[in-house]
C-alpha cells in the first residue's frame, strides 16, 4: 500500500507486470474511488463551464463526456478531467484526487449567478474495468454506451453510472456509484470476471498502462507551468471559443510558437527503466528532461515522456538518456507507443 493524493492505495495486488498483461489481454479492475467528483448545475452552468474549461462544452450531448483542462490565466494546467453532461444544465466533472480541493477553490473564485458548484466526492465510489474483455463482462448488466458516453445500469439492483472511458488505452468502463456500495460491487465484479481472467490492478500497472498509451499524468507531465499546447493536447483546446481562462496566453503562445513539446521516448536497446528527471541529450547538448517513465511490460523496453526542445521532437529523432552517469540510446516516437486492436475510438 502507498499514499497517493491523500489516499491509501495498492501499488499492486499480485505483480505490476502480471496486472498490466491482464488488462492488455483480458480484463482488469481498478479501485478509482480516490478520484474527485464536482457537480456543476444551473441555468448558467453551460456558458460558465465553457469559460472555465479549455474544451468546448457546447459540443457535449446529454450522456456524453469529453476530456478537458482547467487552466490558470497563464494557460498552465491546473487539472485535467472529464466533464460529463448529465442533463441540459447539469454536469459532472471527474477530477484528479490530489487536485479536488484546488480545483474547487479555483472554480468557486469565479462562480457567477445561475451556477451551483458542489463537491460530491465523498458520496461517490468508483471502479474502472479495462481490457479487451471488459465489454463482455459489463454487457451482463445491459446495453453498453459507445466510447466517451455513459448510461445508467443496475448492478445487482443498484443504480450505477457506467462511462465508456479509461486511462489504459484499452476498451473499458469507469463506474460511479454511492460510496457504501463499493466493496459489494468490487467483489461482485471480481467474481463475475474471474472466468474471463480478471485480476485486481493497482497504481503500478495503472502507470505502466497509461505510459504506453502516452496519457499524461497531472503532477508530473502536466503542471501549472506547462500549457496544453506544449503537452500536445491541442485537440482538447478550442481557441475558437470567444473566451475562457487561459485563452489569451494560449493564443499568444500559438502565435510565437512553442519552445518545448512533450514527447514520447522509447529505449532502442537494453537499459534501466526510464524515470522522471533523467536528462535527455543529443550529442553533448541537453535537450530536455523526462517527466515520467517506466519499463514497458508490453513493449519490453524502457519508455518515458519528457519535454524536449521543439527542434528535437520529430518522431525518429535519436537521443540519449542519462541514467546514473551512463548514456542509453532512445528515440522519439509517435504517440501512442501502444495501440490496442480492440479499443473503441
Amino acid at each position, binding site marked *: 500500500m502507498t499514499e497517493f493524493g491523500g489516499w491509501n492505495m495498492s501499488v499492486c495486488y499480485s505483480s505490476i507486470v502480471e496486472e498490466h498483461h491482464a488488462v492488455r489481454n483480458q480484463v482488469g479492475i481498478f479501485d478509482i474511488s480516490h478520484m474527485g467528483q464536482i457537480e456543476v448545475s444551473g441555468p448558467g452552468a453551460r456558458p460558465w463551464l465553457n469559460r472555465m474549461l479549455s474544451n468546448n462544452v457546447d459540443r457535449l450531448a446529454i450522456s456524453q463526456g469529453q476530456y478537458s483542462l482547467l487552466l490558470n490565466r497563464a494557460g498552465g494546467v491546473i487539472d485535467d478531467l472529464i466533464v460529463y453532461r448529465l442533463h441540459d444544465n447539469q454536469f459532472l466533472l471527474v477530477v484528479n484526487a490530489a487536485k479536488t480541493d484546488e480545483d474547487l477553490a479555483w472554480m468557486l473564485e469565479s462562480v457567477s449567478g445561475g451556477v451551483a458548484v458542489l463537491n460530491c466526492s465523498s458520496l461517490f465510489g468508483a471502479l474502472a474495468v479495462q481490457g479487451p474483455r471488459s465489454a463482455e463482462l459489463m454487457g451482463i448488466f445491459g446495453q453498453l454506451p459507445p466510447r466517451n458516453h455513459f448510461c445508467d445500469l443496475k448492478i445487482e439492483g443498484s443504480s450505477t453510472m457506467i462511462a465508456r472511458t479509461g486511462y489504459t488505452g484499452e476498451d473499458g468502463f469507469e463506474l460511479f456509484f454511492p460510496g457504501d456500495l463499493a466493496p459489494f460491487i468490487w467483489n461482485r465484479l471480481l467474481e463475475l470476471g474471474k472466468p474471463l481472467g480478471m485480476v485486481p490492478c493497482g497504481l503500478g500497472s495503472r502507470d505502466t498502462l497509461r505510459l504506453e498509451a502516452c496519457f499524461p499524468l497531472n503532477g508530473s507531465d502536466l503542471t501549472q507551468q506547462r500549457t496544453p499546447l506544449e503537452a500536445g493536447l491541442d485537440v482538447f483546446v478550442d481557441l475558437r471559443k470567444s473566451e475562457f481562462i487561459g485563452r489569451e496566453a494560449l493564443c499568444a503562445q500559438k502565435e510565437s510558437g512553442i519552445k518545448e513539446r512533450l514527447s514520447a521516448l522509447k529505449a532502442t536497446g537494453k*537499459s*534501466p527503466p526510464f524515470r522522471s528527471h533523467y536528462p535527455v541529450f543529443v550529442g553533448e547538448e541537453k535537450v530536455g528532461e523526462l517527466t515520467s517513465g517506466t519499463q514497458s511490460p508490453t513493449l519490453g523496453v524502457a519508455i518515458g515522456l519528457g519535454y524536449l526542445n521543439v527542434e528535437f521532437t520529430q518522431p525518429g529523432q535519436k537521443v540519449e538518456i542519462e541514467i546514473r552517469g551512463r548514456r542509453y540510446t532512445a528515440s522519439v516516437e509517435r504517440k501512442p507507443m501502444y495501440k490496442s486492436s480492440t479499443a473503441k475510438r
Partner: protein
Amino acid sequence: MQAPDDLRYTESHEWIRSEGEIATVGITDFAQDSLGDIVFLELPEPRTVFQQGETVGVVESVKTVSDILAPVSGEIREVNSSLGTHPESVNKDPYGEGWLFKISLANTDEITSLLSSSDYKAKVEK
C-alpha cells in the same frame, strides 16, 4: 518469507553462501518481494575489490531502484550474466538461479558477524 538456514544475511537484505575461499551473494526473498518485478541489474565487474558495506551495484524493479551492498570485503570473481536477459530469475529463485555474484573472502571473520537465518527473519518480521 524464505531464509535458508545455511546462509548468512545482512541488514540490507543480501544473503551470502560461503563455499570455502569464495562466497556466492544474492538478495533475499523479502527483498525481491518488496521490490516487485525486477527488470534491470547493474552488477560489478569481475576483479573489482570492495570493502564490506560498499555499494557494488543496483537492482531495479518497475517501481523502484535499490543499491546492492557488499556483505563482505573481497574481490569479485564471477557475475551471473544470465540476469542480463532474465532479471526475473531474481524474483523467481532468489537463492538459486537468481544469485548475483561470487566474491573472494578477504576476511573470514566478517561472515560470522552477519545475521543468522533466525535473526534475519526476526528482523524482517518485526
